[in-house]
Structure formats: structure tokens, C-alpha cells
């Protein structure tokens, strides 16, 4: 069902755990809908210096969190906002179709963290245009 890379990121996820004093935090989903993903970011001079996650969800949700946090580290905020769920899937070498929403969850969790950061510091980012913080990934099947 899953390729080796998904299994590897699931078994040994990167960037998993708490972060002390994060500059940004975003949580998406809820335990009652099956998945909950929390992203923490350290941001300096508009650059994501560090990213961590905590996820309650299936194996592909954990693997998606792992690669998504890897992918945004060292990127500018605008670059991080360009990371799509499709990029996460490509990085993982593919996900089964019924698990696509897990990658959507990781994209949305990152955007939520940056959205909260932007609100707190009164910033505007081009990549957040049209972003809905109440987005429910479980209602979307498309990539």
C-alpha cells in the first residue's frame, strides 16, 4: 500500500516533537475527524529556521508532516507558502488515492501556522491570499 519512503518517514519521522517558544504555531483538524496536525515554526528575518510537528493521524499523515517540515526548513515564508500538497506527495514518491487528504492536511497546517504568524505581526503574504483558516481537508479530495 505504501512505498518504502512513506514507511521510512512514518517509522522515523523527521522534525517530530515539541518546540520551545515557537514564533508560529498552527493546528488543523481535530481528533474527532480522525487527524490533527500541529506545526511549530522558528522564523528569523522572514526565513523558516526550524520546523517541528505533532500529528495524531494515520501513517501517511505522519509521513506527510515529516517531509513537509523538511521541505520548508531554510525557505522564506513566501517560498514555504508555495509548497503544495502535490509537492509533498512527489517528495514522498506517491500516496494511495485515499490518503491524498493527509498531504492536504500538511500543506494546510503550514499555511495555518504562517497565517497565525502574519496576524500576530500584522503582515501580509501574497501566498495567503484566499486562504481559509477554517478549511477542512476532509471535504476535499482533489490534489
Amino acid at each position: 500500500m505504501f512505498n518504502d519512503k512513506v514507511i521510512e518517514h512514518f517509522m522515523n519521522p523527521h522534525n517530530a516533537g515539541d518546540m520551545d517558544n515557537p514564533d508560529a504555531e498552527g493546528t488543523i483538524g481535530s481528533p474527532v475527524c480522525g487527524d490533527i496536525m500541529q506545526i511549530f515554526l522558528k522564523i528569523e528575518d522572514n526565513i523558516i529556521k526550524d520546523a517541528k510537528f505533532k500529528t495524531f493521524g494515520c501513517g501517511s499523515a505522519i509521513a506527510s508532516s515529516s517531509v513537509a517540515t523538511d521541505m520548508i526548513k531554510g525557505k522564506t515564508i513566501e517560498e514555504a507558502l508555495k509548497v503544495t500538497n502535490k509537492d509533498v506527495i512527489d517528495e514522498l514518491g506517491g500516496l494511495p488515492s485515499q490518503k491524498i487528504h493527509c498531504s492536504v492536511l500538511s500543506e494546510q497546517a503550514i499555511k495555518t501556522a504562517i497565517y497565525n504568524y502574519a496576524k500576530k505581526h500584522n503582515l501580509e503574504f501574497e501566498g495567503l491570499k484566499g486562504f481559509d483558516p477554517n478549511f477542512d481537508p476532509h471535504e476535499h479530495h482533489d490534489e
Partner: protein
Amino acid sequence: MREVYLDYSATTPVKKEVLDAMIPFFTEEYGNPSSLYKKGRYAKAAISDARKKIADLIGATDREIIFTSGGTEADNWAVKGVAYGNKHKGNHIITTKTEHHALLHTCEHLAESGFEITYLDVDQYGMIKLEDLKKAINEKTILVSIIFANNEIGTIQPIKEIGELTKNHGVLFHTDAVQALGNTEINVKDMNIDLLSMSSHKIYGPKGIGALYINKKVKLPNYIHGGAQEYQKRAGTENVPGVIGFGKAAELAKENMEAHIKKLTELRKYFIDKIFEKIDTVSLNGHPDKRLPGNINMTFSYVEGETMLLYLDVQGISASSGSACSSSSFEASHVLKAIGIPLENALSSIRFTVGDFTTKEDLDYVIETIVTIVNKYRKISPYYNTKKG
């Protein structure tokens, strides 16, 4: 890598004695039991022998055992048969919220064509209340169908008391005994059971074969129409090797029942005790004692079930969960819902079912792996932290 199979409720391996009994019927004794010549008669006699063994396992007479393609067909036949055959008497069927889908979906189908279905509630252990059943029976009630032992949480219903009640009310009683067969004492006469569904592959027999016990006093319309096989009750050339395998498996189940129940109960207790000892915030789903000997259903709060299953799978361990995370709808088990388990805990529940080939060493390996999983994934569960403050 070590491989541990803990999904005996899903299916069981075919025992060697069973396979040995079946083999000749593929290549040598391949005759059609309806044929009049020797090869046919031989197959027919072998079927009669198997039928007797299955009847013996549940305290029935030979002619009351009719072979089907499995438990699902038996359930469909029993419920639809009684429904369509008793339309003139009434249109009300009583069942429970914790039935197998073979029963629930059959009832949903009947509801679409005008039958009224009452789904009885169960308590926190998955047990029905006899009082509720009594109240639900009315003059239109034609059938009570209650699962003997639940496939997910293993709860064994008070079947004898239900049989007594339905008998006194003159209502037919069907039970899906697919999980119960060989795992608890069944006597259809003592228990006043009119119809009982069975499956071979849950008792170390082959897949694709099951049976419906039909009490000789019950007139049940046919479900599969065609030839005159199975006392003209179920058409189609018999699955001879399957029937023979089922018969052998039933014979072994009867011989070994006491030792089988004792062994599985001990393994179950060992597993549950160790888990409680080693992991906090876990709970057992189902009844503490009135459950299938091999059934363990536990909630490992804050760790998502599929995460556990995937990790276990990578470690060579097969188990199952009542739910699957797929696309938009995350549906938790209807059984866990019925016993009042909150959704987030239902999503963290796993069923392990032990069987005749399970060893204590297997369980030690599984327990150790579960401890690793729970520690590892609780640490990264946001939900664990919020709950723990």
C-alpha cells in the same frame, strides 16, 4: 523477522488434518454427489458424514444442517427467508445495533421494501437487555436476530434467555454464530434457536463454505433456486472439498473445545494484564468475562489505530481495527459507537484475536512492540499533550 498472526477472528489457517481430509476430493473422489454411480455415491456419503459432524457441534440433527457458501449467505437466507415467508403474519424484525454487516445490511435492504426493523441498544459491554427485547416484541414481530458473539468486541449474548423469550412469544429466533462456533458451548435445542449461521473458515476450515441450521419445525423459503441438492433447500452442486473440510474442522472443534477455550482464555488474560501493567490510559472494550476466549479489543488513547496497525505490520504482526482512515469520511466502528466509546477513542482501538497457533512468546513480542509504538507516537501526538495539560 518474526511473524505473528493475531487476527483469528478475520480468518484462521486451515489445519493440516482438515486439508488432508479435503485433498482426495479434488483429484480422486471428484464425483458429483447427485450422480448415481459409485463416484457420486461416495461423495454424497462423505457429505452426509460431514453434515453429521457439524450437527453434533451444535446439538442439531443432520437434516437441519444446510450447506451455504458461507456465513453471509446463511445470514441473508435466514433473515430474508423469514421476512418473505412470513409477510402474512407481520413485517417487524428485531435485531441489535452491534450485528455484523451481513445482518445489518440485509435488514437495511428489507427496510427499503417495507419491513420495520428495531435495532436494540446494548450496554457499555455490548450486552442487550432482555427487558428491551421483551418490550420490542409486538404482534407484527416475525423474527428476532441477535448475534451470538460479537466479531469486534467478543461479547457473548445471553442466547439461552433470548431463546426462552422468543419461544414464549412464538417468534422465530435467528443467531449469527459465525464467531461463536467452536469458541463457546452451543446447543440449538437447549437454547431454543430456530436458525443459526455458521462459517467454516473461522474454525480452521476452508473459506467459501458455511451452513445454516434450520430447525425442522421452521418452514423457510428457498434462497438459491435450481437443482434438488441439500434436501431441495439449497440448489447448486455441492462444494464437496469445502464441505468435507468444514466437517473435519467441526469434528476437531468439538474434540478440542475445552482445551481450546482454556488456552485462548489464558492467552487473552496474559495479554490484557501485561498491557495494563505496561501502558497507562488504555481500556478494554467489551465484557470482561462474557466474551470470546480469543478476543482482545483495546483502546490505546492518543495513538491513531491505523498508525498502530501499520507499525505492527512492518514488524510482522497482523491485527485489525474497526475503522479505516480513508478520504473524507472517517467512519468509526458501529459496534464501538453502540457501546458508547467516544469517536477519538474508537479511532484508537485495535482488535487482537488469538488462536490455536498463538504462543506466549508471540504475545511477548507483540506487547513489546505495542509499548514501543505507544511511547513513540504519543510523544508526537498533539492530542496527548492537550489532554494531559
